[in-house]
């Protein structure tokens, strides 16, 4: 017997259950939020600097090779750094996962495997915690919510390794492509480059975040559309301040000009930051849980069922 659709009623007088939003907020404020972001890209593209610029704090050190005797790191050294930043009483637990050594070797075959494995391991750990009989109250969420993919500003098109890795990454995590060091391209070159990248990605059927869901209302759909038209973001990062018109802003100073990181006419850092932190932060976390994690989970459980069915079959005749 199918249940009847709920009928909408107007209450007679003010009840007061609309304060549930504040109650939830109160609870959540106590708990704090967790956000895990991964950066993928060749050495020297400014990944660490961009993270530091995004969150306006010195969180990661640049991992470039500086001494000639030092050895280039390999991607097997993926680890996460945890930080807690707080703003207006809201605590954000930030996990930054860096991937040094990606794409730096002469032979880069399989350099993306450790990265994919790491992402899947986080899903796997969460699944295991979920399935145990005695679960923790709040399972610590180490799943990667967002992956910033840094594209080399060549001005031509994507490199073969980028295409391969993007295809693999978009299957398991929300990927936001970013054009690094965008101050090496003029505005026309930038527009052309973006066009070519999007054409290439469409050709390979790579699904980029943000995804559209049915429950999004018009405003959200429009916002998503705008974001999608701007992808990939052409950004410039800087931790140092320069003086422009008497004001001290973050930027880069050359002999022939000064770039203001927060100026929309110079680069798209502001859009990226708003997108990541001001509009889509919650959505990123949710999408990871609802789409990527669910896909992983169903695949795992199906595989488990199959393997246990097979085991039963094998043990039955014997």
């Amino acid at each position, binding site marked *: 017997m199918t249940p009847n659709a709920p009928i909408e009623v107007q209450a007679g007088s003010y009840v007061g259950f609309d304060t549930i939003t504040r109650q939830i907020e109160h609870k959540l404020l106590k708990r704090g939020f967790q956000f895990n972001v991964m950066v993928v890209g060749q050495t020297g593209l400014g990944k660490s600097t961009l993270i530091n610029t995004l969150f306006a704090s010195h969180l990661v050190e640049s991992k470039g*090779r500086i001494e000639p005797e030092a050895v280039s790191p390999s991607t097997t050294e993926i680890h996460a750094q945890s930080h807690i930043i707080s703003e207006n009483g809201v605590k954000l637990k930030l996990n930054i996962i860096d991937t040094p050594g990606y794409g730096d070797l002469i032979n880069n075959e399989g350099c993306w495997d450790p990265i994919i494995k790491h992402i899947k391991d986080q899903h796997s750990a969460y699944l295991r915690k979920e399935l145990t009989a005695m679960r923790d109250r709040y399972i610590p969420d180490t799943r990667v919510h967002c992956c910033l993919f840094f594209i080399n500003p060549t001005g031509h*098109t994507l490199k073969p390794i980028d295409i391969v890795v993007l295809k693999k990454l978009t299957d398991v995590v929300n990927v936001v492509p970013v054009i690094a060091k965008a101050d090496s391209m003029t505005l026309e070159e930038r527009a052309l480059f973006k066009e070519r990248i999007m054409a290439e990605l469409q050709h390979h059927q790579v699904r980029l975040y943000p995804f559209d869901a049915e429950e999004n209302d018009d405003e959200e759909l429009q916002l998503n559309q705008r974001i999608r038209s701007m992808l990939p973001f052409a950004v410039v990062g800087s931790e140092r301040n320069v003086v422009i018109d008497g004001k001290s802003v973050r930027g880069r100073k050359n002999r022939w000009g000064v770039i203001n990181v927060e100026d929309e006419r110079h680069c798209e850092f502001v859009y990226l930051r708003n997108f990541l932190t001001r509009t889509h932060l919650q959505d990123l976390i949710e999408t990871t849980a609802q789409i990527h994690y669910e896909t992983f989970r169903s695949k795992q459980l199906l595989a488990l069922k199959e393997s246990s069915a097979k085991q039963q079959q094998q043990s039955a005749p014997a």
Partner: protein
Amino acid sequence: MQYQQQQPQPVEDGLGTSGGTSGVNGHSGTQPVNPINRKKLASWVGFSNLPNQVHRRSMRRGFNFTAMVVGESGLGKSTLINTLFETKLYEPKQIPAPGVDRGRTVQIESISADIEENGVRLKLTVVDTPGFGDFVNNDESWRPIVDNIEARFDAYLEQENRVNRLKLVDNRVHACIYFIQPTGHSLKPIDIEFMRRLHTKVNLIPVIAKADTLTEEEVVLSKRRVLADIAHHGIRIFQPPQYENEDEETIQENEEIISKVPFAVVGSDNIVRSPNGREVRGRAYPWGVIEVDNEEHCDFVKLRQMLVRTHMEELREHTNDILYENYRTDKLKAMGVSQDESVFKETNPAAKQAEERALHEAKLAKMEAEMKMVFQQKVQEKEQKLKQSEEELYARHREMKEALEKQRLDLEDKKRRVESGRPLTPEKGTKKRFGIGK
């Protein structure tokens, strides 16, 4: 050549050196040292016109220069070449449509152009290496490049060994400009590997490409790190050589150039309007305009100076005198050609050949004799063996025959006895047993 002079004069000349007089007395070759004898001219002879003669001859012949550009795609190689020689040698690149297979190996493409300036003709060849560093697996991506350079050396070597050497065409690579990504860190593994493989075969000029992304301090840091890496791996990049008798200005210029290596360059073949209204070659950004020809903005001017204005001839000389000679020596040694000290021995090539042939034939004959002997030996051995087995066979045959005879007699005896009616041991039957052995 010894110069005999009757009156050794104390030499004081405008050059300021006091040369020792060579007190010669007709002996040849016994003095260990020939002091330089500088003479002052009484009147104008005219050989100071020699450079002009060389100049005229070179102008007639024209010059030729081959440069190779190596680097990952998108670093601005084609643009830089266009900027250096102020000609659109390279058309804007055609980007392949998405999904088109871009091949797996590094290609070598060369473009030639004849350009002329003030009556001087230059045949410029630029060798491009598309695909270098662009694949997922870049192992051995330097190999096609090294093979190409060596092939050019080989071609020149062959030309030198020809009977008619009047028209020597020099296709050897005189300079290789290597483009480094402006990461701000040190060199990448592929950069180091490539430079290690090529620094003995070609004049390496490393440049930091797209230097407009780097701030001043980053440029300085970057250069320092790159040089440290290069020194650490023992890579020899092209250094403009210093000569003693150059004038102050040239020496200073040289020093300036050397201090800026590796050059941080920006290329542009477009004209833009700078903030103070001038039309310059450069790139226009929302935050400023970078001028390619401005020394304060980038090192392009120094690169052009070194490559084109002052050291083009040095590069060619270095390629010819040192790099090519080293290659030739190694190659000939590998082929087994040894240095023949007695250069003017009276060798009659025909006699030498006959001698060689005789030697060769003797060798062959010896081998033949040896083989025959071995053959004989083997034949003998085999014969012996066969004889032995033959004898054995005979012996056995005889034995068996005797045995048979005996059996037969036995049987006949028994037959007679049976016929005569006498019972004997159980009937054996008249089966003649021919069992040879059991």
